[in-house]
């Protein structure tokens, strides 16, 4: 792909670039999006695929030519370079169908234009994955540097991560991979383990969620997509600090005219033995000979992590129908270093494993199935075996020394003496169907229904557990009308959603050991949303959206996770009012985007230790969130591409007057970052050593303002537990030559003390070397 950092020219006069977008059968494509990467100008094609892109005389275009990015619903995005001498010519652009035809018209993250320029009515952020796919990066890295998003890290490879979008986090955020909820997608246990090279784009929906997801998320959706064939053939290897090795393979190749065979695979292994303690860490200590506390700095000694995945796919298509079938096996093992909530409780032997066998696929209408209707069906089945082994009677300290023998096994809960040898067998079913009806060129109607079924049973050496499986089923259905007015300047989406869940808990009550057989659960709810986008000029968008959203309890919340939470039949769905208002404006090479958000959530589902023997999820929190985020993209001295963003969010606890903790009314929600920012600087150089190479240097800074671990209003300032202010620097150097990419990186460059969830210390400085080989190009 040419890099547009060379000579620049301007037009002598205003000029128009004209052309037509068609499919491979020369059928015109309406509503295709044509974007000039150099200027950010864009236009959509008319009903016969024609477009006209106007440029003003002061707009600067590289002499090598202009890169156009052309995308359309159901077709792979094309990027073409139009040289100066061809500007006067009529451009005929053909798009190739891609496996999914029911995508919304989105700008893929591969584009060079600012990712802030999104025409959709929903509040959506595109996250760049292009350069990250050859970097030592994962989905967390891709999201961490985006505005309004905070990744709550659990400490090194395999740690427990949570994503916070505009103030909401945890299960209120849904993660999708190729239109399937991640836990049903056959990609293993954690999104963070997936090599970014598998994804062609990452989209983050804040607030209003498109009906097509069939999702019951409360605060947003992170959508990862792998449909772009450009990234689907590569092999990578990474070696990093803390004895970390990562490898991945992505292959796809055509078999004849109609079949494509693909394979995704990855392997990660890490000792995860980074240093913890000292500095401002008060959690890592041992006793001296007189029992007094001594703070120390040591390596993690029981924190290793391994995972791997195999996922072959087979795709086919003809003019009327297309389809894909996949199967996968994923395995994971994670040692546990300390109690998640209390790092002073050291663990030396406990670990957990997870195995998933899955199969699934999708069927959808082909390109010539009809002009008016298109449809899609996604389905999957997953069999999961989750195993926690915590039986050791040995007690370790942070120096990995054996200091005691407990009378009963179980390290994680310390002397509460609860050993676990728990195996959860889980069957998961997922089915989603969508139908799109094109009323006319300005109006589209889409309906979507999703069914998920979760069935599980538990075996535990230390507990008498019912062998009768529990089951839980959710249905989420929705319909929306997407319309365009004022010559496409105004886009409006109105939606209605329906939620229903039902289930039966057969497991034992944690207290009485009595079965909860026939303890039935059920409920219904409804939601609605309205999103509007106004293109005020070629360079300005104004968007406003509102959604009354519902999130149904997750299977883990209803049925318990088998380890630290127990079944409950009392849960109600969470509900929220979500309001987003955003303005995006471009001035030459500067793009500024602002987003104001407001969330009012009721009955948030949280895990409480009210009964320490029998922790269950409960509806407890009402929270009001206000916030604003600013994001800038700009070029500096025509050499550096610079991105900066800052997010401020104010989360306030609003219990009901009848709640026993009403005295906390309007207190700032604890253990929640409220001010964070990112700054990135990037420069590229083509033809560094020869005509075909490219080098890039990137520098990232991530800032998190200090925040309280516990309630702000309680306790004296001097005694508060504080997650300290953090500045995390990262330096990336990549070099591409022909089919090889090399990345050398330093993460947490200055070895800063970094913390997140419950004061779990994050890794210090680490070095990464990664090599990527593009295949079959």
């Amino acid at each position: 792909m040419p890099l547009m950092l060379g000579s620049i020219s301007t037009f002598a006069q205003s000029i128009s670039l004209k052309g037509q977008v068609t499919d491979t059968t020369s059928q015109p494509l309406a509503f295709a999006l044509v974007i000039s990467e150099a200027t950010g100008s864009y236009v959509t094609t008319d009903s016969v695929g024609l477009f006209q892109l106007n440029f003003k005389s002061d707009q600067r275009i590289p002499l090598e030519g202009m890169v156009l990015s052309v995308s359309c619903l159901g077709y792979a995005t094309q990027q073409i370079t139009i040289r100066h001498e061809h500007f006067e010519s009529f451009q005929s652009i053909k798009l190739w169908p891609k496996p999914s035809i029911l995508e919304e018209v989105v700008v893929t993250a591969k584009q060079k234009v600012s990712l802030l320029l999104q025409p959709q009515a929903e509040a959506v952020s595109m996250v760049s994955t292009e350069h990250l796919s050859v970097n030592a990066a994962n989905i967390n890295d891709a999201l961490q540097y985006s505005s309004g998003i905070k990744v709550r890290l659990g400490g090194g490879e395999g740690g427990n991560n949570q994503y916070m979008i505009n103030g909401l986090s945890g299960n209120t955020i849904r993660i999708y991979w190729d239109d399937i909820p991640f836990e049903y997608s056959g990609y293993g246990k954690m999104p963070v383990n997936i090599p970014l090279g598998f994804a062609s784009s990452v989209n983050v929906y804040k607030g209003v969620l498109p009906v097509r997801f069939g999702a019951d998320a409360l605060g947003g959706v992170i959508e990862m997509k792998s449909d772009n064939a450009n990234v689907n053939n590569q092999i990578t290897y990474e070696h990093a600090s803390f004895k970390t090795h990562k490898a991945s393979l992505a292959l796809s190749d055509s078999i004849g005219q109609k079949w494509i065979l693909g394979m995704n695979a990855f392997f990660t292994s890490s000792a995860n033995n980074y240093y913890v303690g000292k500095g401002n860490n008060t959690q890592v200590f041992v006793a001296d000979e007189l029992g007094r506390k001594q703070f120390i700095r040591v390596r993690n000694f029981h924190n290793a992590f391994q995972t791997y995945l195999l996922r072959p796919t087979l795709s086919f298509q003809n003019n009327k129908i297309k389809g894909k079938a996949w199967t996968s096996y994923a395995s994971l093992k994670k040692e546990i270093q300390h109690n998640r909530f209390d790092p002073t409780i050291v663990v030396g032997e406990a670990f957990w494993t997870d195995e998933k066998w899955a199969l699934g696929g999708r069927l959808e209408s082909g390109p010539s199935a009809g002009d008016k209707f298109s449809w899609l069906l996604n389905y999957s089945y997953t069999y999961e075996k989750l195993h926690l082994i915590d039986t050791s009677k040995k007690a370790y300290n942070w120096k990995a020394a054996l200091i005691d023998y407990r009378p009963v096994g179980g390290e994680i809960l310390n002397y509460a003496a609860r050993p676990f040898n728990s195996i959860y067998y889980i069957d998961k079913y997922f089915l989603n169907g969508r139908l799109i009806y094109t009323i006319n060129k300005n109006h589209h109607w889409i309906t979507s229904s999703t069914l998920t079924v979760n069935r599980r049973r538990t075996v535990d050496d230390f507990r008498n557990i019912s062998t009768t499986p529990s089951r839980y089923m959710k249905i989420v259905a929705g319909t929306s009308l997407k319309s365009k007015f004022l010559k496409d300047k105004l886009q409006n989406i109105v939606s209605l959603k329906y939620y229903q869940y039902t289930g039966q808990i057969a497991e034992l009550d944690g207290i009485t050991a009595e079965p909860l057989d026939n303890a039935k659960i059920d409920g219904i709810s409804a939601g609605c949303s309205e999103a509007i986008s106004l293109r005020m000029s070629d360079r300005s968008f104004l968007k406003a959206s509102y959604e009354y959203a519902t999130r149904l309890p997750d299977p883990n919340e209803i049925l318990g996770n088998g380890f630290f939470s127990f079944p409950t039949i009392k849960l109600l769905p969470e509900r929220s009012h979500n309001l987003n208002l955003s303005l995006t404006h471009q001035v030459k090479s500067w793009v500024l985007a602002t987003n104001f958000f407001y969330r009012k959530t009721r009955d948030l589902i949280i895990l409480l230790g009210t009964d320490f023997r029998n922790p269950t999820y409960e509806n407890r929190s009402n929270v009001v969130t206000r916030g604003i985020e600013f994001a800038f993209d700009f070029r500096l001295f025509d050499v550096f591409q610079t991105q900066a963003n800052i997010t401020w969010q104010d989360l306030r606890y609003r219990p009901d007057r009848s709640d026993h903790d009403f005295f906390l009314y309007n207190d700032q929600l604890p253990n929640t970052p409220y001010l964070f920012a990112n700054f990135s600087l990037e420069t590229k150089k083509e033809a560094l050593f020869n005509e075909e190479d490219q080098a890039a240097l990137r520098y990232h800074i991530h800032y998190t303002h200090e925040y309280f671990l516990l309630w702000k209003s309680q306790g004296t300032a001097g005694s508060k537990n504080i997650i300290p202010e953090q500045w995390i620097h990262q330096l990336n150097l990549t070099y591409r030559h022909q089919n090889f990419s090399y990345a050398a990186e330093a993460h947490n460059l200055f070895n800063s003390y970094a913390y997140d969830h419950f004061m779990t210390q994050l890794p210090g400085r680490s070095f990464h070397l990664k090599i990527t080989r593009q295949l079959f190009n």
Partner: protein
Amino acid sequence: MNKLYQLIIICLTLSLTSCGDDDASPSIADNALSGTYAMLTNVGETAGVQGNSFLQVLSEYDSTVSNATATENTNKGTIETYGDYIFFAPFFSADVKRYLVNEDHSLTLDGELVLPGVADIAVISDTKGFILQNAFELVEFNPTTFTITTTISLQQFNDKITEFPFSRAGEMFIRESDNKIFIALNYIENMTFQHIDDEVAIAVVDGNTNEVEKRITDDRSYSPGMLIGSGGQGFSIDENNDIYISCSAGYGFQANELKSPGILRIKSGTTEIDPDYFFDLNAAGVGSSVGILCIGGNEAYTFKRNLNQINDDFSNVTIAAAHRPVKINLSTKSLIGEVSGYAYTTFLNGIWMKPFNDGTKCYLPLNSDDENAVYELDFTTNVATKRYETIGAVISMELVQ
């Protein structure tokens, strides 16, 4: 004028001499806490946050006591005051803390011991205190230097443990007259907390020699003391130096119907359970109860479990079972009457009764969904009166008088 100088010199000399005397015999028991209340309140377990506690010293209180001047801790626990110090023993994390109480009643962290799984803490003197670890160790420590002196193993009492059920040494009581330490032993199924043992078991340790003497048992009831330490509230000593032991027969949940909750006695000067004394609480119409406070005249208070309040939606007994104090006669083994002016408190955040020095009243908590408060119970009228409301449940409290 000369007389004035002479007077000043005499005063200075006296004051310096006085300081010198203090330095010569320092005692952390000479405290500035007199007339104050050290209080540990629990706040949290909302919005995804684990419960945490706040420690503060109060000499006065308003109608509502906030945590504005309290010191934050990340765990629940129990406290013990001694001299100018408050010792905070968290129930699950690994560090026992000593706080120095400043003149303005603010707290300064002044030492930490690494001792996981603490159940109870008690200070005997400037140089001797004990910390009970629920995994069957008794740790002697020096309160002045705040260092561990020695560790006394109680592992011999683990003989009833199989792989799954476990033992819990939940509470200790130190008889000051001879420094005998009585430790309640409970043998429990660890997930349901159902008792696997059908007798009362108490370990006896000599606090002078640190010798583990024996285990004394009695099969007329079971589950002695409190599951988690709360200032010795499962034991109480009367004016005759007789120790009375509350045996709840199941802590308000998973009660074993085969045996009655009751009260046992260890007579003054002995270390055996009195075979001639058993107060059958079922027979007296009291029923299951926890805690005991002897108030003299053969009378005592205990927290009676309210059977009408303990069933949740699934007819399961919950740990948040409601309790309220009742007055009982230890001699006639009868119920005197329920306390008026007091609703119900939950077991979860601790049940305790702290007597005033004059022996006519005590403080006790009321922790419920409706209120968190400290009540004053008048022994004579048998009426409880709310003294003040608190921000968060009052887990533990020490009165320094």
